[in-house]
């Protein structure tokens, strides 16, 4: 986590959307921004550049206060996918509490997916995080496109690892919220072990998830 200030009763968490360039990380965040209630979340901050890709990163912050007065801020980041921004990726990844890996389902992107995942493993190790322990979900995006990797194949590869896999079409809002919910879910479990959120702060997992994903529109309905 970025910060835990006991005196101010404040917990700042970081979730990171990782993945190869143009796999739809920003689209995921934009859809979340659109879908979720404005209460308790800020505007999506997009630091983009002229060539349409996310050179720096996007940031979608959430904020709520538990009944016991613990202020919880969750900052959801995307990393720049382009290979040359590895230093930025490391900085964004540092002290992350959870990672959503957004893979590109297109057949032609298999190599890039693989390279990016390997890069994630390396950078997690670099910033002192254990890929085996950190909450991690994988989303195969762009399911609406032709020439994509078959779902059976994906499942065959990833199911044995125990990592949760989601099929999505971020552009159309499908699978976005499910991915995020699962990541938040896993993150709660991880945090609860350390901070006893449920016991000490009267924050149940449901409340935690609801606070971050209260959607009152049907936009993202599956």
């Amino acid at each position, binding site marked *: *986590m*970025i*910060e835990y200030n006991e005196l101010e009763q*404040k917990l*700042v968490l*970081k979730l990171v959307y990782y993945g190869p360039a143009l796999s739809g990380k920003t689209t995921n965040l934009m859809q979340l921004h659109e879908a979720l209630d404005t209460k*308790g*979340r*800020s505007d999506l*901050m997009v*630091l983009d550049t002229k060539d349409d890709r996310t050179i*720096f*990163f996007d*940031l979608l*912050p*959430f*904020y709520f206060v538990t009944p016991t007065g613990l*202020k919880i*801020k969750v*900052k959801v*980041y995307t990393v720049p996918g382009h290979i040359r*921004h590895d*230093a*930025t990726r*490391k*900085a*964004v990844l*540092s*002290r*992350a*509490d959870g990672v959503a890996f957004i893979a590109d389902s297109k057949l032609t992107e298999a190599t890039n997916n693989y390279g990016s995942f390997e890069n994630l493993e390396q950078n997690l190790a670099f*910033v*002192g*995080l254990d890929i085996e322990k*950190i909450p991690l979900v994988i989303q195969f995006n762009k399911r609406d496109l032709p020439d994509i990797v078959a779902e059976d194949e994906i499942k065959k590869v990833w199911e044995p690892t125990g990592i949760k896999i989601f099929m999505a079409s971020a552009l159309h809002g499908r699978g976005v919220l499910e991915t995020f919910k699962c990541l938040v879910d896993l993150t709660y479990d991880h945090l609860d072990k*350390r901070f006893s959120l449920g016991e000490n702060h009267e924050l149940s997992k449901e409340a935690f998830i609801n606070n971050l994903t209260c959607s009152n529109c049907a936009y993202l309905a599956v």
Partner: protein
Amino acid sequence: METEVKTNDGIDFLVGVEMSLNDILSAPEVDPLLAAIIKGGAELVAITDPKGRFLWAKGDRNGARELQPSVRQDADKGRYENANWRLWPLYHEAEPIGFLFILRPPGESLCHLSHITEMAFTTLNLIMKNSVKRMLTTEVHTASIQQSYNELLEINKKLSISEKKYRHLAQTLEQRVEERTAELKKAHTRLLQQEKMASVGQLAAGVAHEINTPIGFIYSNLNTLLKYMATLIKMLKFYKKSSTVQTAGSLNESEELYNKLKIDFIMDDSLDLIQENIDGAEKIKTIVANLKDFSHIDDVSEIEMNINQELENTISVLLHEIKSRSARIIKKFGRIPSFKGHPGLISQVFFNILLNALQSKDKDLVITVRTEQKMDDLVISIADNGPGIPSDIQGRLFEPFFTTKDVGQGTGMGLSIAYDIVSGHKGNIKVNSQIGEGSNFSIILPLNKKYSPSVEG
């Protein structure tokens, strides 16, 4: 996530640190806005932190440093305005981080202030948004630049290590090239010297061959002459005896002449003279033959040779040197098998080492030449009772041009050439020398050249 990521310098490459209003806004940005609101008629305007403490304030605040408790209580209840004042909550990342507070002058309505404050609030939010964006950009830039910088430092470190390695390599390379060049130069000179020696040998062999024929008939004629002379003397003696008997009275005239011519002496001496000539001619013949054998001018390929015989030949060539120094040569030749090699070259080895030994001492010089077979090696040792070789120069003996003789006396090539020749026969030369006790050069020649010689102390 429990581990903090620290670099070597303790810089934390972290994106997402929390910011307060103090970090986001600065007086130069805020002041004009607050001044405008006061100008618009407000009694007091302030920007506060979440707890209501004034961060920036303008107007008449009567020494107040924070919001009145009543205002704060209202704010906590979600009431942000009454007839006298208004609060505008400021958010950063969805978190309330402060307020814009406006107090109306006593007795005046806030109404006419609302437009300007609305504008100021919007502007303030815009400034905050841009400021945050700029700070985030800077944050990421700094983080990634710091990281790249550290990576560059690391690369630089590695580069300088490898540069050092290569520089060292280049330096030693230069040194190696120099060494090789020197070696080549030496080898070249050695070849020249060897060629020179070879042509000297060729000349000697040619001269020997030319002398061989005349000395042949001189020797043969001298033998015949000795026989003739003996016959003549026999006849002359017979004449003298018979004439003395027959003509007793008139003897005097011939007897007088006979005595006057000292015929008796001539007869005795001429035989001795001829014998001496024969001995001399014989000696010349031997020398010439040795010289020819020694030079081995006709042998280019390896042949089976008798090492003991080669030593004999070499010693005879050096006979003059041996005699002039009254040196004693002790030969302890063992029963050794023949050795396959270049006789001319091997002789040169013996010659060079023997010559050194001969020059080691002027008086009472004793040189012991020994041959023996040790396992699969032939060992030829040439030991003198000279002054010995100082240990500090023993290692340099076989270096080309190394000499202890006066300038012009030695080439410094003798032992170097000997070493090369023996190496060429897969052999080795060992030196054992102590000051005052003489030197012993052992030439080890392997009988089976496939194996390197086993050297015994």
